[in-house]
């Protein structure tokens, strides 16, 4: 067990730090809409131009092909420099759609999509959830019927983050008519400009419009856009979840290390006061989360579902940190400042990507081996 960085690693850190300090935009990112898209893509393109996108992505598709420790270093410097939140509209493409295409896609799919993602040319969204299929994703009913060399999609998705500004969607549909549950699904790349797609943005409780409903009316998608095999979509979706729960949130998890320091600086608690104790304990937990993040990247997982432990810890801890911020702010908490905004947004951390209850089910059943009884 060691965590010793080489001189070359330290050099990498220094270079990353310098570059981020010089280049990270100082203006605040627009919260939503076309402006948020332009801002995020411009920032990603700038990163890419100077070799700072796709740190751990394979080189043949435009990444840097660097090690996990370099990835950690990059994110640490990224959050310390207060570079734009990693949870912007490039998130889906960079953190789970892209990695899924890389893991399960064809050569053509990889060659076409991955460089566009890294270059900051396109936005992706995720179309898994439906009105009747949230936690119970396998209940999804949006259908895609094979018609020649195309699929014809009809149905509805919901809570699709960034769908209003996206070019592509990772779309999970039922391709085998009459199939049940996990069988007969396919994971397809849907061009959001296709005829028959209607996007209705939905405002969230923080007052921003990130997610949307998407309606499909005879949308034609080439069969060559299926990723991981026709009717094999559940397996591909599990790969997506693997990334979503394991590595996607590294940047967010580490960002909490900076947020807690900011909160301590804001609160200036008297030594020994209740606030000091509370912030000290939160600081310890944030350190624990960082250690879990390190473990997730630098240790063979004991269990494929280990990501759920980190995911659940992060979501609930982020909420505790922002609850503390609300108490510390006092009446100012009622104004829509950044802490209040983060507080409201943090409610999603135990819902999106599998609710806290679902993560607990996964931990109990797949890590602890407890019985699955309905």
């Amino acid at each position: 067990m060691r965590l010793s960085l080489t001189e070359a690693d330290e050099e990498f850190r220094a270079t990353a730090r310098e570059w981020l300090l010089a280049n990270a935009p100082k203006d605040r990112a627009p919260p939503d809409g076309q402006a948020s898209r332009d801002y995020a893509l411009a920032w990603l393109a700038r990163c890419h131009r100077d070799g700072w996108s796709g740190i751990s992505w394979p080189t043949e598709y435009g990444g840097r092909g660097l090690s996990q420790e370099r990835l950690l270093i990059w994110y640490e410097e990224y959050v310390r420099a207060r570079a734009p939140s990693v949870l912007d509209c490039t998130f889906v493409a960079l953190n789970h759609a892209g990695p899924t295409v890389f893991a399960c896609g064809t050569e053509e799919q990889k060659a076409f999509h991955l460089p566009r993602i890294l270059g900051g040319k396109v936005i992706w969204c995720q179309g898994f959830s439906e009105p009747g299929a949230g936690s119970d994703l396998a209940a999804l009913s949006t259908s895609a019927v094979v018609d020649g060399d195309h699929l014809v999609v009809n149905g509805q998705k919901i809570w699709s983050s960034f769908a209003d500004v996206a070019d592509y969607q990772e779309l999970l549909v039922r391709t085998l008519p009459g199939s049940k549950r996990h069988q007969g699904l396919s994971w397809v790349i849907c061009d959001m400009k296709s005829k028959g797609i209607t996007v209705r943005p939905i405002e969230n409780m923080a007052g921003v419009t990130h997610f949307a409903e998407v309606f499909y009316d005879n949308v034609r998608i080439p069969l060559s856009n299926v990723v991981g095999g026709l009717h094999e979509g559940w397996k591909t979706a599990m790969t997506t979840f693997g990334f979503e729960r394991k590595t996607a949130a590294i940047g967010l998890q580490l960002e909490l290390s900076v947020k807690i320091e900011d909160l301590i600086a804001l609160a200036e608690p008297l030594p020994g006061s209740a606030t000091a104790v509370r912030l000290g304990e939160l600081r310890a937990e944030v350190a624990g989360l960082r250690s879990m993040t390190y473990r997730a990247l630098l240790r063979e997982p004991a269990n494929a579902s280990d990501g759920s432990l980190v995911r659940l810890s992060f979501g609930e801890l982020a909420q505790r940190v922002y609850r503390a911020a609300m108490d510390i702010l006092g009446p100012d908490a009622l104004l829509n400042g950044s802490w209040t905004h983060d507080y409201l947004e943090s409610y999603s951390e135990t819902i999106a990507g599998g609710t806290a209850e679902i993560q607990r089910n996964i931990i109990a059943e797949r890590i602890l081996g407890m019985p699955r009884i309905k």
Partner: protein
Amino acid sequence: MTCDLNLNEDQRQILGAASVMLEASYPVARRRQRRPDDLAELAAFGAFGLALPQDGGEAGYSVVEEALLHVLLGRHVVSTGALAASLAARLAANTGRSDLADGIVAGTTGVCAAIAAKDSALLVERGEASFALLFDGRELALLDMDGIDARPVESLGHGIPLQRIASGEAREIARSADDELADTADLLISAQLLGVAEAARDLTVAYANMRQQFGQPIGGFQAIKHHCANMAVGAEMASAQLDMAAIALRDRRADASFQVAALRHLAEKAAIFNTRTAVQVHGGIGFSAEADVHHYLKQAHLLSRLGAGAGLLAMPAPLAPHEALIRGE
């Protein structure tokens, strides 16, 4: 890779051997007799001098392996005498008493843990120990128990053999306010707390999968599953933090004291939460003194009285924010 959080072959071997020894000599059921632990087998295993230089040479192992060993001791609810011996040997060696250190490591000189309390110190599982290691906040003191008359006192639910000094004054032969030793103490205490937390989780999951009510294992009920998932999350966070803190301390990194203090908080929280939840999930048998659950709970409370994590806001955290960075830190 320059960074690697997997156990290496050496570590796997020594931990495997320790597990076998502990299963054979320290099954938790022995705790039902409520007698002070005999630590001879542990001494024979070399547990108390694991990270000490041997015969003037290099130490065989580091504080990382020692911490991982102490997780196993926690799992087996081993007497705090093992902690006391490991730390007292260091204190004796640091203060030039190498004969005493050798005797402690060999197990021929017994040391028990003592806790600074109102009136006089509490001695934990004293047995035949001729020395006591006093945990006095961030300081450690080695006490010579020669000529000391100590009387048994009733401990929490009669769970742990405790004594209080009745007459005579223990002679303090060494004291340390050294940060590295205090951090080592907190690391090992935390490791044991983590072991208790993990054991409570495993014991509870096994019980929940076996115990039938309403025609099914209670582990199938979601309320029970979620209790167990919460235990798993707390233990996992403390366990990841243990690796981080132990490595930081071994490598004398600048953030070592902070990492240990964070660990101390997480491990204590996990141990108390997991043992409390273990009682609940076991139902009536969990509340009885005939099952082993209460031993873990009491050990968690005992361990949490030892040492004292450094103040959590007193030290800079590893990911310093931006301003500090710009100031050229």
